[in-house]
Structure formats: structure tokens, C-alpha cells
């Protein structure tokens, strides 16, 4: 995907939030990436240094968390995780569901700053 552009977007948003909080530097930040988003965390981390250069985030550590796909099963009336990412059906009863509850996230969760 376009991980450098995404990394730049993270820097922009985190830098702005950190300045609003009167921070002198961002030390760590955490993003949540849905399994359906197509974004590769390794690629994001690899271009982090370039994206964060000359910003409040230049010394920061980026951590990524992959969010699994969950769907609501209308039959079992509960939130379940499909066995296979590309086969959206309940692992218990086999009912297909496109009621995706998680797995599409591209979220800047938190920043740690000084």
C-alpha cells in the first residue's frame, strides 16, 4: 500500500495533537490496523524515520497492533472471529455475515509525550 503517505498522515495528526498538549517531544505512539485494511505494519515502521524527520516525533517509537476481523453472527447472536480472513462466516454455525464489527481500522490510538 502507500505506507509512507500513511506515515506522513500519522506524523501530521500526532504532531498537531502533541503541540495542542504543549508537548516538547513525542516518545511513543500506537496505531491500530485492521486486517482488512491492506496496510502492512512492517512497511509503516520501516518508513517511520523518514516520515518523522524534523518533527516532534523524530525520536519516537511507532508500535502497530493488528486488529482481527470480527463479524456479528445473526444466528448465534454474538460477535465471532471467522476462521479465514476472506471467508466471512461464523466459525460455530457457518452462517455468512457481512456485519463486520472490527478489522477495517486505521487508527492512531494514543501518543506518549513529554
Amino acid at each position, binding site marked *: 500500500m*502507500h505506507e509512507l503517505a500513511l506515515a506522513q498522515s500519522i506524523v501530521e495528526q500526532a504532531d498537531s495533537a502533541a503541540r495542542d498538549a504543549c508537548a516538547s517531544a513525542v516518545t511513543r505512539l500506537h496505531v491500530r490496523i485492521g486486517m*482488512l485494511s491492506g496496510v502492512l505494519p512492517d512497511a509503516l515502521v520501516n518508513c517511520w524515520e523518514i516520515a518523522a524527520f524534523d518533527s516532534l516525533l523524530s525520536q519516537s517509537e511507532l508500535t502497530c497492533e493488528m486488529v482481527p476481523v470480527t463479524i456479528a453472527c445473526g444466528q448465534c447472536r454474538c460477535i465471532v472471529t471467522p476462521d479465514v480472513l*476472506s471467508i*466471512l462466516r461464523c466459525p460455530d454455525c457457518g452462517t*455468512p455475515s*457481512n456485519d463486520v464489527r472490527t478489522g477495517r481500522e*486505521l487508527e492512531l490510538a494514543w501518543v506518549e509525550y513529554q
Partner: protein
Amino acid sequence: MTESAMQPPRILELRQNLLKKNDLQAARLRTRFHEAGVVVVNLVSGPGTGKTRLLEETLSRLRAASIRVAAIVGDPETDCDAERLARSGAPVRQIRTHGICHLDAEMIGKQLDDWNLSELDLLFIENVGNLVCTTNYDLGESLRVVLLSVTEGEEKPLKYPGLFNSADLALITKCDLAEACECDLITARRNLESVRPGIPIILTSAKTGQGISEWVSFLLAFRRPETPGEPICASPSPVN
């Protein structure tokens, strides 16, 4: 030790969408499209699935039925597709992304400045051919249509679940070549349904005309919502 180094680190919860800027712009576009009464269709797929060929046929058919149509087409380079589409007589604009692998809402917004949207019934956006990067970029569309060509193989939806799951309708294209490509249409259909349960699927061939009437009817059903203020359809997979 500096003053800042002595202070304990603090955590700021943000929970912000990484594509917030695009999503805000897309939301503005969606409002604008809705107010103008134009249905916007975002065509997504890998390269070479026949988006342009299908659109040539679609624009011609709709114009013949006195439906007011226009198209915006995105490619990394060249105006080839815009030239092809313009032969239908519809207004067409080409976006050259210069290497960027998807269209975004800002690119679309820039194309609309001197277009009177209220004079259009349907606006098609032919996205850059890409099975990954187009997934997360909302363009303010009413309908996202994914194309799967028989030349790609039946398993594409399983390999690229994000994009196929984000679509409202799937068109299997180039069906006239299915036998020659040994494409099993039943498997192709099953794979689309696995990755996006409940998705409507139309088998098409822009060359023979197969499925084109059904596709056009599907589009016309979305034209001009009867109740102003009601959403035309569910917006495609908003991220957060």
C-alpha cells in the same frame, strides 16, 4: 538533566482515523452529490479488468436512454482512457496521479469546480487499477462497484478481501472469455460471496452485451432518491 526529561511521560488517547482528512473531504462531497441529486459510482478493480471498456458501453447505453452521465477516470499516466470514454459524447475528465496508486476525495473535489452537478444523473469514477490501495479511500460515492474479470482467476476475491469486502456490487467481466480462460464462474461467484456475503453479482461482457441491461437497470434504480434527505444507499464501509 533537562526539565522535559525529568517530567514523567504522559499518554494522550486520540483514537483518530488515519485517513481523517480524506474522510472529511469525502463526507463534504457526499453531501454535495446528494444535494445535486447525482448518483456517484466508484469503479474499483485490478488493472486490466475492463473498467474502461465496460464504462464505454455503459455511458453510451445511458446516453441513448437520455440519462445525463459524466465520468472521471484516474490513471498514473496518460489520457488514453479519457479519450476512449469521451467518444460516447459524455463529459469526461482524466486525473493523472503521477504514480499515486489510488484516487482520493481531494482529487475528485478538484475536478468538480466548474461542473454543474445538478445537470447530471450519474457520475462514474473509474479508479486507478489497484486491488489494495483503493480500498480505504472514500470518494463520497453512492455505490462502490468492484470488477472481477475471468482472465484474473477465480481466487482474486480471496486474495484481496479488503477491496472486495468494501464493494456494494460485483461485476464479473469478460464472461465471453470464461471458457477460453478456463474460469469457473461458479467458483468465482462463491468466492465473491465468501468475502462479501450478500453482494449482488452480475455476469457481464461489454463485448457481447451480456448482463449490460441488468447492470444499467441496477444503476437506474439508484438514480434520484424518492425521498429527499434520505441516504441513497449505505455508504461503503466507512473506516471507523
